[in-house]
């Protein structure tokens, strides 16, 4: 049968191309454009080459923001992953209470980011917030707006409150998929509770836990709204994570060139980390022979 050649078919792809161009390609190219030019106003641009990239890479301010960012992601992963697993282990496996738990766990995930920020901003206040008030009563003069440690604690607790459920739900799903025979066999082998966890539950949860770590790392690495609402990156720049610093640079100081170079590198870092995770996960699947 003769194939009918009809190049008009390409027109059908056009809407998608246009959409993607406007949503991703053109904005990204604008950023690329800014990152290699400088301007003194009046819409006059000068070629800057890789100068902004060099500046950003050697900037102490960006290094500090990156350091804070890595510390933040590290801390919340170190809390949320074990805590999520622990919660999943404690949740009932079936029945009425299992459903109740699932709904309760899912609730924080449904709250918009800036609402979460507002909730914790108020909770942390000593005059009208329960959390701050109680701390004040037991003798801690709580002030997340002035004390960097207090600001960090508030932001970390807020993130843990918001996102631990996600880890718990994923871990719960992983636990539910373990056949009963494994537990029975472990009982017969006289394995302790710890060994059941170490040799059955943890290995079986490995896949979902990797997904949880990836999701939580990416999300926390890009966090903006919640700390912005609570602390605005302060006090000083104590909680200025990468996104907050970037916005300060781009919109606060209107340093479009360095900010553009910063954005591109930020994007590449996230791409790189995602790729590493993806590779690790697919290799893991192969090793399992699935």
């Amino acid at each position, binding site marked *: 049968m003769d194939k009918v050649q009809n190049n008009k078919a390409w027109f059908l792809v056009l809407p998608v191309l246009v959409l993607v161009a406007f949503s991703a390609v053109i904005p990204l190219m604008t950023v690329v454009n800014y990152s290699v030019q400088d301007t003194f106003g009046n819409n006059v641009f000068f070629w800057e080459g890789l100068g902004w990239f060099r500046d950003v890479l050697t900037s102490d301010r960006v290094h500090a923001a990156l350091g804070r960012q890595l510390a933040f992601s590290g801390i919340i992963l170190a809390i949320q992953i074990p805590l999520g697993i622990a919660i999943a282990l404690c949740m009932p496996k079936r029945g009425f209470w299992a459903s109740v738990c699932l709904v309760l766990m899912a609730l924080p995930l449904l709250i918009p980011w800036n609402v979460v920020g507002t909730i914790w901003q108020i909770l942390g206040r000593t005059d009208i917030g329960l959390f701050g008030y109680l701390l004040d009563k037991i003798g801690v003069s709580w002030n997340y707006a002035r004390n960097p440690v207090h600001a960090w604690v508030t932001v970390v607790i807020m993130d843990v409150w918001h996102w631990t459920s996600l880890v718990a739900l994923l871990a719960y799903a992983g636990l539910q998929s373990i*056949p009963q*025979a*494994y537990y*029975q*066999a472990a*009982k*017969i*082998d*006289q*394995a*302790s509770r710890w*060994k059941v966890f170490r*040799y*059955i539950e943890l*290995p*079986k949860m490995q896949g979902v836990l990797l997904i949880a770590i990836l999701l939580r790392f990416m999300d926390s690495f890009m966090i903006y709204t919640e700390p912005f609402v609570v602390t605005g990156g302060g006090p000083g720049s104590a909680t200025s994570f990468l996104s907050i610093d970037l916005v300060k640079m781009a919109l606060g100081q209107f340093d479009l060139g360095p900010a553009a170079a910063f954005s591109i590198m930020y994007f590449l870092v996230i791409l790189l980390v995602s790729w590493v995770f993806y590779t690790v996960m697919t290799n893991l699947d192969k*090793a*399992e*022979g699935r």
Partner: protein
Amino acid sequence: MAQITLDNLAHSYLPNPQSEDDFALKQLDHVWKDGEAYALLGASGCGKSTLLNIISGLLVPSRGRILFGDRDVTHQDTVARNIAQVFQFPVVYDTMTVGDNLAFPLRNRGMDPAYIAARVQQIAGMIGMQDLLKRKARGLTADAKQKISLGRGMVREDVNAILFDEPLTVIDPHMKWELRTQLKALHNEFGHTMIYVTHDQTEALTFADKVVVMHDGRVVQLGTPEELFDTPEHTFVGYFIGSPGMNLIDAEVSGDVAYCGGHAVALGGSYTAPGGKVQIGIRPEFVTLSSGSQGLPVTIRRIEDVGRHQILRAEFEGQPVNAILPEGMPVPADANRLIFAPDRISVYADDWRVLPVHSKATPQREAV
């Protein structure tokens, strides 16, 4: 090691069982003699696995007691009962090596490391995995994983019993034969009580000294393979064991003659007229084809040649009747009568075998 006694045992998965139908395992009294190899045979869902899990302590029975020797273990857990169990699907600890998998039950019991190493070597030799001891268990084939599970089940020497829950389901046919033979050899060597659950009659008959046939939550017969073949106590045993199973034909019995739809069939013994639904049963091996005027007139449906012999599929008044004919025996065109060997006929009332008042030749059987 100990004798295992089931005393008045029954189990229901419902919290408040009302009628007998609510019980997955109907009332049962049974003694598993120390050091024997038993097979628990039955169709899927007949309560085999329930019974096994009750013996191993993974399930607490709704009623009755379990005794190990003289010790009541009904409410003791698996650890206290000191039982090994192998499951239908392979259970291996993925992140451990094959050797660590085999050593796991021993290490958990704090055995001497030198002893563990020696014992693991021995078991690995048995299941043919000596070369793989250092390899991670993850990524092995289902066969290999199940062999590890079997090995883990047998690694402890002091267990009261080893239970197998259809352990060879996932194993290749040629490996099945080999592993079964090894299990049998192991049993002869160590003398553990072994209970082997299966729905495969060949597996049951080749593995066990005694076969326990279960049907609908009830033990219908316990016997040697010969007993199950010669004198099925229940129509289910007749039907389930043998290939094809026993022929069952509705009949009226009086004295030593059964009347099937007006045709007289001679019996091997004399019976007082049994009540209920009466059937006579005969294995296809003892049915011969005839073209005379004797025997039951049947309609021949087809003949299957299975190599060793031929199976004649026929019908008598809407009821299927099979006969096994010698290989190569021609079937005459006018042959339409089946003759039953009288002393091989059993009589069933409401599915249970009725004993003759006096028997001419029926072999004596052990009471259940």
